[in-house]
Every structure is written in structure tokens, then in C-alpha cells.
């Protein structure tokens, strides 16, 4: 089984509300996709993501997420004001299921993510595919 990484552009994120964004992220993560957001979530959205994750955790397949936001420090006054008004803190954000993302570490010059390939049993694969299609 390979690892899929989806990159979501700022433009695509801006067109979504918080709930829509979080649902989209969680749906991908639950399907073992690692998501890279070009535009970071606000801190409030991050807690909403944690809250939504807690609701989704089940004891068998999904036990949470690993995520990391690379802080993007704005230097232009205009950007700072815009960030303050919107409450937004931009920065590339990586989110993945804790089952495949073992750790995301901040090094002085880069971010390091350790992910593992997991063999998926045929039963699990079937279950996931049915879930995706909405079949019970």
C-alpha cells in the first residue's frame, strides 16, 4: 500500500468555511491520505479539528491525527493587519492519520515527517471502500 499526499491550495481553502474545511481534511485523513494545506488553519480552527477528530476516533481503525503548522511570519504591515483582523495565522500545515504518520518534528531548517507504510488487510480495504461509496 502506498502513501497518498494531497496538496490543497490557498485558493481552494479560502472558498470553504471552517466546518467544510475540517470535514474535508478528516475525510481524507480517515482514508489514509496525508494532507498538506498551503494556507494554515487558524488556531481556533485547529482546536475545532482536534474536537472533530476526538468525535471520529474509534478503537479499531482511527485513533487520531498528527499535524504541524509551519509558522509563516509576515513582515509587511499590511499583511500583519490583515492577519490580525481575520485572526488568521498562515503557514503550511501537514495533517495525517496517527496510524501512518508516526511523528512530525521541527528541525532548525526544515520539518521532518516520519510516515510508515502499512499493509492493509483485504477485509479492511473492502470496509474502507464501502464506506467511501456510502455502502453499508
Amino acid at each position, binding site marked *: 500500500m502506498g502513501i497518498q499526499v494531497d496538496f490543497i491550495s490557498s485558493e481552494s481553502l479560502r472558498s470553504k468555511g471552517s466546518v467544510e474545511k475540517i470535514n474535508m481534511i478528516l475525510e481524507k485523513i480517515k482514508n489514509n491520505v496525508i494532507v498538506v494545506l498551503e494556507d494554515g488553519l*487558524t*488556531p*481556533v480552527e*485547529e*482546536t475545532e479539528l*482536534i*474536537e472533530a*477528530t*476526538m*468525535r471520529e*476516533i474509534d*478503537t479499531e481503525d482511527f*485513533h*487520531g*491525527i*498528527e*499535524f*504541524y*503548522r509551519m*509558522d509563516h511570519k509576515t513582515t509587511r504591515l499590511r499583511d500583519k493587519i490583515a492577519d490580525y*483582523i*481575520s*485572526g488568521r*495565522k498562515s503557514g503550511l500545515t501537514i495533517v495525517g492519520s*496517527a496510524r501512518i504518520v508516526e511523528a*512530525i518534528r*521541527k528541525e532548525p531548517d526544515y520539518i521532518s515527517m516520519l510516515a510508515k507504510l502499512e499493509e492493509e488487510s483485504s477485509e479492511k480495504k473492502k470496509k474502507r471502500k464501502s464506506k467511501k461509496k456510502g455502502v453499508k
Partner: protein
Amino acid sequence: MFDGFGKRFWKKLLRLFKRKKIIQLGFYGPVNAGKTTLANRISLDWLGTEVGTVSEIPHETRHVQKVENVRVATDNGELRMNIIDMPGIATQVDFKSFQEYGMSEEDAKERAKEATKGVIEAIKWLDDVDAVLIVMDSTEDPYTQVNVTIIGNLEARGIPAIIVANKIDDERASPSSIENAFPQHVVIPISARTGENLDKLYQAIQEHLT
């Protein structure tokens, strides 16, 4: 967007004029940072009762625990607060990690379910606290996403906070790492286990959070 800004603005403005006699003080932080040990220490010292049990097994505190009307005598008078000890904030809860401590599968699964509810409850309480102590383990790397998210959230909501660098009685402790990671915040190094520097913490609460 403007609503969020407006709400934060009015909250900050109101805080300038409204000094509460008793503050609702939330204890937030990652799992196993020593929040309940600190709450117990304060409560035992001033009320003679403990708040909750502590354990090396993660997620020992799975429900919000409240102690009302704690009165602490300080150099500047009296500090009155309601202590709200929150379950630790985590991004994942895996029942298998509890089994490593010898717990049965059934008990571990039950603990995991309660732990997820505890995290949700702690997040909900952000709407009702006046001020926060962010408790961090000073033997661990402080620059984690959970710590960054908690701090960012409090800043966005205009809730004043102090960082408590706990476990300084441990020889591996490095409270300066916490100070370096979050230079814009007041950091008080303490040991909840031995009570070291608690007087400094009370003073800081009185100066910055009331």
C-alpha cells in the same frame, strides 16, 4: 470574519474594566504535564482537599474537575479563584497505549472513549474560563503542535495566560527551553510535586491574570 474580530475586541475591552473578585482559572496543557498534581497541591495547601487522582498512565484526568473559592494569601493581599482542572489536550488516543501499562483490552478501550470525551469537554470550557495556566512538562520539548495550538487559541480569544514550566525537580528539566520557545509569554518554573516556586506563581497570577 468581522464578527470574530468584534467579539475579541469587546472581550479585551471588557476585561480592562471588569476585574472579577473570583477568577475562573483553567488548567490547560498536554497530557501528563502535571495539571492535576498542581491543582492538588494548591487545593491541599489552601483547602485541605485534593482535586483528583494522578497516575503515570496517560489520560488519568478524563473529566473536568472543579474546586471552588480557593483563597490564597499573597504578599499583595488575597487571591480568590475557582480552579478548573482540565483533561489533557491530545490529537490522538490509542487504547493500545494504555495496554502497555498492563490494562485489559476492555478497560483500555473504555479509558480511550472517556479520554476523547475529556478532550472535547476541555475545549468547550475555553468559552467559560477567565484566565488560564498552561502547564507544560519542562523535561519535554515544548515546541509541540498541541502547545502551539493552545497558546494560539487563547491569544485569539483574548484569554490571558501564564505558562507554568512544571517538573523542575527533575534533573532533566529545562524551563529555559520553554522560555525560548514562547518568549512573548510569562513563564514560571515550578515543581507541583515539591511546591517549589508556588509563591512566585501566585504572585504572577495576581499580577497578570486578575
